[in-house]
């Protein structure tokens, strides 16, 4: 079933907090939900579908649904890490197309700067004994991908640094961004090594905060006073070492992208703006290749020399500053990717980074660990009218 034209993103809200020691995580979820509902011109009682992922406190969606007093006929707590919320947009559109709900709320929030990360209990995953002893952590699970990419394709640290430079050029116009200073390639390379070959400035920020989206049926979207942002196409995929068939040269975006483009009936050349999940610079580089914005192995040359800077390069990306400079709430950047794409399509991005005549945008994300198991979600969005 195609979801093209079956649902619209009518509300989007990025919580302004980047450090929230005086708020609870459920509170940040609820404040984000309220912000998205106000943006849409809808009320809490209009919501009949709720989507959340592993950052939501409690058992699946149950605690947050109860906390917010939601009355629901559809719930979905699909968990693919930071890409979950992009997948949720697609699942919400599917649920709306199937008549299972008409107004879907998606929330994300967390406080990694203010409270320690708590691992879930329960049964150990099957790979634990074969990976945990080796100290796999977020930085090296991406560093290993960067090392292999450099080996296979001659990608350089200078090329990867351009991704941070481009994000910083955008973040200077975002008063909420954690890092608002423009940086140079040399400054990225001079920052300390976290896990080879990644420097500190190859990494995203750690921020408290949250965000929310409202996805609604066409008749509801047309009754509201907001620009129409339609879901044109979507894809999702998972990828892992799979018994030893590991290939770190590509991400699951190679599988989530093609069905999204096919459903939307567009190609990468039609995309005016792209939100590319930027947990690390290498994450962006690999997804650009995997989605077909350039050939495999040419990502380094594609991102160099400001090609991702709005008004300068061919493919404006992450014009809010992205996870690299603006915000990575709950260590999960998927929802902010969709939010900035909605801003661009509405013409509500900062004037210094707004893409002229932005009618088709893409948001894509990788959640989990690129160097091990990860999930990818891709959505293609269109402004109507």
């Amino acid at each position, binding site marked *: 079933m195609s979801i093209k034209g079956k649902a619209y993103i009518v509300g989007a809200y990025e919580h302004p907090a980047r450090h929230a020691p005086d708020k609870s995580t459920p509170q940040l979820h609820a404040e984000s939900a309220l912000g998205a509902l106000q943006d849409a011109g809808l009320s809490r009682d209009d919501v009949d579908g709720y989507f959340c992922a592993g950052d939501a406190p409690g058992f699946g969606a149950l605690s947050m649904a109860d906390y917010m007093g939601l009355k629901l006929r559809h719930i979905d707590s699909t968990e693919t890490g930071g890409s979950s919320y992009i997948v949720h947009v697609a699942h919400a559109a599917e649920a709306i197309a199937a008549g299972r709900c008409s107004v879907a709320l998606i929330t994300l929030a967390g406080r990694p700067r203010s409270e320690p990360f708590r691992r879930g209990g329960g049964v*150990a995953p*099957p*790979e*634990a*004994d*074969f*990976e*945990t*002893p*080796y*100290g*796999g*952590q977020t*930085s*090296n699970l991406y*560093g*290993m*991908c*960067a*090392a*292999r990419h450099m*080996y296979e394709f001659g990608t350089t640290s200078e090329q990867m640094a351009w991704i941070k430079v481009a994000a910083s050029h955008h973040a200077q116009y975002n008063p909420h961004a954690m890092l608002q200073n423009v940086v140079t390639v040399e400054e990225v390379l001079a920052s*300390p*090594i*976290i*896990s*080879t*070959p*990644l420097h500190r400035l190859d990494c995203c920020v750690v921020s408290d905060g949250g965000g929310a989206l409202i996805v609604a049926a066409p008749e509801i979207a047309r009754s509201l006073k907001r620009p129409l942002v339609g879901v044109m196409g979507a894809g999702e995929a998972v990828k892992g*070492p*799979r*018994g*030893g*068939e*590991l290939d*770190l040269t590509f991400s699951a975006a190679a599988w989530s992208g093609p069905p999204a483009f096919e459903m939307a009936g567009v190609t990468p050349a039609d995309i005016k703006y792209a939100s590319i999940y930027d947990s690390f610079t290498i994450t962006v580089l690999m997804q650009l290749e995997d989605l077909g914005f350039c050939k495999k192995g040419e990502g380094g040359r594609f991102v160099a020399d400001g090609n991702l800077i709005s008004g300068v390069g061919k493919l404006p990306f992450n014009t809010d500053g992205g996870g690299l400079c603006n915000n990575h709430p709950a260590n999960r950047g998927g929802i902010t990717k969709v939010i900035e794409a909605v801003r661009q399509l509405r013409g509500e991005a900062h004037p210094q980074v707004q893409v002229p005549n932005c009618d088709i945008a893409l948001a894509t994300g990788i959640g989990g660990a690129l160097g*091990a198991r990860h999930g990818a979600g891709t959505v293609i969005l269109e402004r109507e009218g």
Partner: protein
Amino acid sequence: MAEPSTTRKVPAPQGNPETGSFWDAARQGRFMVGRCVSTDKGGCGKAHYYPRSICPFCFAPGATLEQASGKAVIYTVSVTYRGAPEPYAIGYVELEEGPRIMTNFTGAALESFRIGDPVKVVFIPTEPDAPPVPMFAPA
């Protein structure tokens, strides 16, 4: 250049009913891989890792453990300097039997390990009474 990690505390494997025999072999210094049943028995015959009872490639039941050569080539490596008490080298190696597996590198300076280098398995102690874990050192 950082020196090889010898004191980093390595978490002990917990084991489970499916992987207990792998860790029993590890205690005896034998490094095992999973092997699917042969094609004449409905499987694909390929080696896999970590070991499963049902083959992850063809989903045939009845996979068994077999001793691996311990020879491998470095597929990727990253030396981690932050987020841990001391630096360490993590990577994937491609086993002679085929599978690419996560590991640490030991027995030489951390920055000396290069993609494509030949390495061999060594067992590194974890905790008293717990099995050792396989890592890789220069061949």
